[in-house]
């Protein structure tokens, strides 16, 4: 190993055999290098005059941002360090200071596989260190996440999409993935809702034998016709398509309620999935007189056809 100044133009930026860092703004690091200089030199592997990053990928990016042409680095020759040793140096240095984010975890897993470690060894020896939850079929799923395009991995690293969503995106074909990704960006769903989104899209497309792009295109059209934020509307459209009978029943229930013209202060609800033919009527009254009047109204309400229908969720309510 020797220390030398290396032109940044000779760094093999795309070669990510050993480095996996992703996510988190570079601003702070760039500012600090600008102010106090580079304290810890990156480590590079000299491969026939091109330099593969072992450690310090983010520092190198910061230098490039600062417009520097050279970097003072520790250089290893190919005969000085094995690929696994190079990977381990970077991995353990990172792990000493922080936990890996899921995009980094999946990339590191892929690197281990590329280095020839068996899936069993990776699962038993590295899963907890990579910050990846154990799950059935996890190895293959995470490996496929590591092959997602950079834009998606960046979103995963920043927490804009969940690991579950990334796993789902990785199961899709190229064009399906692109349309799903476009949709997700536009919908800007919270992390919690992405999970539901992925499950709904997967279930509907399999059940209806529809391609993901076709499904999402029609959901987008339907969502745009509704009021409100696109993501929330799209999710609602998906829910209704996934549970069409339940959605129809809920719409019918609302229609009946509207037809009843409930007096102010009255509220009628039922079991969220109509499992029980029970209605819950709430009203507020201040004072004995108001209470008596409310009871009279309630009695009148109970005699209305629409009210009776509300109690028989199995029956199809008549349309006006």
């Amino acid at each position, binding site marked *: 190993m020797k220390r030398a100044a290396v032109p940044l133009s000779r760094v093999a930026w795309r070669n990510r055999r050993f480095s996996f860092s992703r996510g988190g703004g570079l601003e702070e690091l760039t500012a600090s290098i600008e102010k106090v200089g580079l304290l810890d030199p990156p480590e590079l592997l000299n491969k026939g005059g091109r330099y593969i990053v072992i450690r310090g990928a983010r520092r190198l990016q910061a230098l490039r941002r600062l417009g520097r042409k050279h970097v003072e680095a520790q250089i290893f020759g190919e005969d000085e360090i094995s690929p696994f040793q190079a990977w381990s140096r970077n991995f353990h240095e990172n792990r000493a200071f922080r936990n890996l984010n899921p995009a980094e975890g999946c990339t590191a897993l892929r690197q281990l596989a590329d280095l020839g470690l068996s899936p069993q060894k990776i699962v038993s020896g590295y899963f907890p260190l990579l910050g990846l939850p154990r799950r059935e*079929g996890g190895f293959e799923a995470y490996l496929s996440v590591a092959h997602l395009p950079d834009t998606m991995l960046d979103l995963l690293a920043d927490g804009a999409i969940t690991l579950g969503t990334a796993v789902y995106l990785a199961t899709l074909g190229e064009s399906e993935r692109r349309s799903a990704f476009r949709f997700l960006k536009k919908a800007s769903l919270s992390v919690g809702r992405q999970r539901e989104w992925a499950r709904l899209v997967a279930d509907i497309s399999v*059940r209806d034998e529809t391609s993901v792009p076709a499904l999402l295109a029609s959901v987008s059209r339907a969502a745009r016709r509704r009021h409100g934020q696109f993501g929330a509307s799209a999710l609602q459209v998906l829910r209704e398509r996934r549970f*069409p*009978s339940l959605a129809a029943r809920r719409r019918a229930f609302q229609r009946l309620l509207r037809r009843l013209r409930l007096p102010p202060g009255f509220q009628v609800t039922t079991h969220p*999935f*109509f499992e*029980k033919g029970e209605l819950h009527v709430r009203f507020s009254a201040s004072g004995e007189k108001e209470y008596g009047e409310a009871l009279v109204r309630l009695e009148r309400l109970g005699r209305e056809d629409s009210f009776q229908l509300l109690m028989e*969720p199995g029956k199809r309510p008549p349309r006006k």
Partner: protein
Amino acid sequence: MRFPIRKITIHPEAAGSSVARTVVEKCPGVPVVTAARPSVDPGDEGHSKDTVFITPRKGRLLKRCPGTSSYVCCGYRVLNLVTGCPLDCTYCILQLYLNQPCLVVHADWEDALRELDELIAKHPGRVVRLGTGELADSLALEPLTDMARELVPRVLRRPEAVLELKTKTTFVESLLDIDPRGRVILSWSVNAEEVVRADEKGAPPLTARLRAAAEGRRAGYRIGLHFDPLVRFPGWERSYSRAVEAIYDHLREGDIAWISLGSLRYPPALDAIIRRRFPGSHLPLGELVPGLDGKLRYFRPLREEMYRRVYRDIRRRDRHAEVYLCMESPEVWRSSLGRSPGSTAGLARCLDAAAIAE
């Protein structure tokens, strides 16, 4: 014919049991290990289905059917002599319940008869309906264990007891020379052929089950049928009509003590297991919503539609069989069958009467 067994583990305390002897005798060439734990890889779900572990029981063997108070239950008593099943149905609840990753045979199963005697003594004069098909298929291991063959005569010595053996298999041979005296019901879980093919891996086709039922009937057994789980898929109406037709091609009105109808339902935790173990299955894609007991089940009007339709088909062919719903509310009973037993006790009374009706 039997399901393939590749390994037998016998707990040291069960080594001298008669069931251990029978199993070993019936599996020549299969490696036998004596150990306090079965040696199976718990991650390997398929492998566990060909490993038998013979062990003393832990806890009581005779229990109440674990129905919930939100729905009307059949009020059955379950004898857990075996846990685990060599079949592999997509919807099987055992995937969630069992933590022993193999087929467990309780060596001291005869203790269950003592528990049964205690129960009979507590409720003199009452019919006790019991079955062995809650944590296992009642007959799937019969060619290995002869347990049903041993159990039937012992139960018959107790006049209050009615035994139901529920299966999807055709393994009735060991029972055909026993006189069931009208108090043993051989039951089959039946379904549309599409469901059998897609979601009952390892189970014989419907017609094979019905041929076995006809054989059982000829030997004097009364027959029970369980359309459970009813599954919705494109064309389910005609498929279930065909299944009902097939039943009466093999059995006559009067042969059948009862027919239960139950729709697909399972705890939410099973959903992930089904998706993982059976990625091609359409079962989780149904319109399943949480019921009163928290289990996922078809949205109520969809269940009612299925019950009405299958009930109508049955009643066209059979006016006598007691048809009941499994784990449904009185409201669903009324809107589907036009009547309701009102409660678990009410349904239990109907089934007790049907059990001794012959």
